[in-house]
């Protein structure tokens, strides 16, 4: 459809407060919510913290595995970011604490061949990201949300957060990352969702 279709009788509510700032932070096709909706494909996994590890494997010189206590001891910082879910909600100024992927990957020493990160989670979920999209402060593993430990239904004890991509890329219940030379579509990426998922380009589904 080259010409824009107009829906008969639709006016819409526009941005509630008319703020240009909020409008400029709302990706196409999204609406602002103040809730924190939950979406996942199966039951919420619960791994006891004493059994929890975070590993980095694949094309690294030094595979690493942190226990929960070791992970908490890594340098962390607070992040305030806007999050967009492919189901259309966007939530502004979400406040997390976590560890930058830069910090995590530093410890493992990435091999020059590595070009993609496959994040994997309890329950078997995976998602893929090009390495350049998660370095330099663009992604972190969060274990606190809004000043409290991250709730299990929101991905606790720890989840990946990649604010510049639709939220399915922010793998809940993350347990590790594998570095690869080749790309490999993850769970939703194999089920018709976009391989990159950039919300500002509205890359929702395969072919967008």
């Amino acid at each position, binding site marked *: *459809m080259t010409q*824009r*279709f*107009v*829906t*008969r*009788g*639709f*006016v*819409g*509510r*526009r941005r509630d407060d008319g703020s240009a700032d909020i409008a400029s932070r709302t990706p196409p*096709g*999204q*609406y602002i*919510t103040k*809730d*924190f*909706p*939950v*979406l*996942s*494909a*199966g*039951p*919420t*996994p619960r791994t006891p913290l004493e059994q929890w590890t975070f590993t980095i494997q694949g094309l690294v010189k030094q595979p690493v595995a942190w226990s929960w206590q070791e992970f908490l001891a890594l340098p962390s910082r607070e992040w305030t970011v806007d999050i967009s879910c492919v*189901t*259309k*909600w966007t939530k502004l100024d979400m406040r997390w604490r976590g560890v930058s992927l830069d910090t995590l990957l530093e410890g493992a020493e990435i091999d020059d061949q590595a070009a993609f990160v496959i994040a994997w989670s309890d*329950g*078997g979920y995976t998602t893929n990201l090009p390495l350049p999209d998660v370095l330099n402060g663009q992604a972190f593993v969060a274990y606190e949300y809004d000043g409290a430990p991250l709730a299990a*239904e929101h991905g606790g004890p720890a989840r990946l957060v990649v604010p510049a991509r639709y939220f399915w890329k922010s793998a809940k219940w993350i347990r590790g990352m594998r570095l690869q030379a080749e790309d490999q579509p993850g*769970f*939703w990426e194999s*089920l*018709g969702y976009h391989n990159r998922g950039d919300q500002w380009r509205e890359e*929702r*589904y*395969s*072919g*967008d």
Partner: protein
Amino acid sequence: MAHSLDWQLATVAGVHDETDAVRSFSLTLPAWTGHRPGQHVDLRLTAEDGYSVERSYSIASEPERSPEVDITVERIPDGEVSPFLHDVVIPGDRLEVRGPIGGYFVWEASQPGPLLLVGGGSGVVPLMAMIRHRARAGAMNPTRLLLSSRGPGEIIYREELDRLSATQDGFQVAHTLTREQLPGWTGYARRIDEAMLSEVLAPIGREARVYICGPTALVESAANALVRIGLAPSRIRTERFGPTGT
């Protein structure tokens, strides 16, 4: 799946009230490639000045009815889209739609074995696509729907579910009403819990495939209870909606 999901101009073929606050819309699509039960569509509304909004809606109808697709929409009083759909849209209107979307929360009659469907409120919608498809395909696999609704007037698809339940093809519906029951109500009268799930599951067994759709709290508690009962987490598929589904 290299093809892109293009927007299509659907024509509203019919409008049908399910309850006071829930209405179904039959959409005829010009280039529908068919769907699998459990998938959804995206809907885009655009105002004169170009302002537009998008929402996702589960498909309620069975694929056998393609290229007609039903969506069932609950009217959220302070919502932006559902009041428009309820109050403005009439047969003959056209709406921009694309899909089908989602390939995980799907069930097809070619998948054998017992089936447990658990729905809360309008979470029954994608499950209804599975139930209708199952009936249409003549499947006889043991199937249960446990449907949680607030009150007797809020049970979506009630007559159709009761009719399908009476056909003796292996499908049975169990209702629970969480807030209001009329005298003589014989169904459950509490929130879904482990005991209720055990009872509904007993005749079909723990090897059942499970699909749960509803508000987050219901999905969380039902999925967790089923894992405690002993079902493999890999057999349980969930779809949730928070309080923001407008």
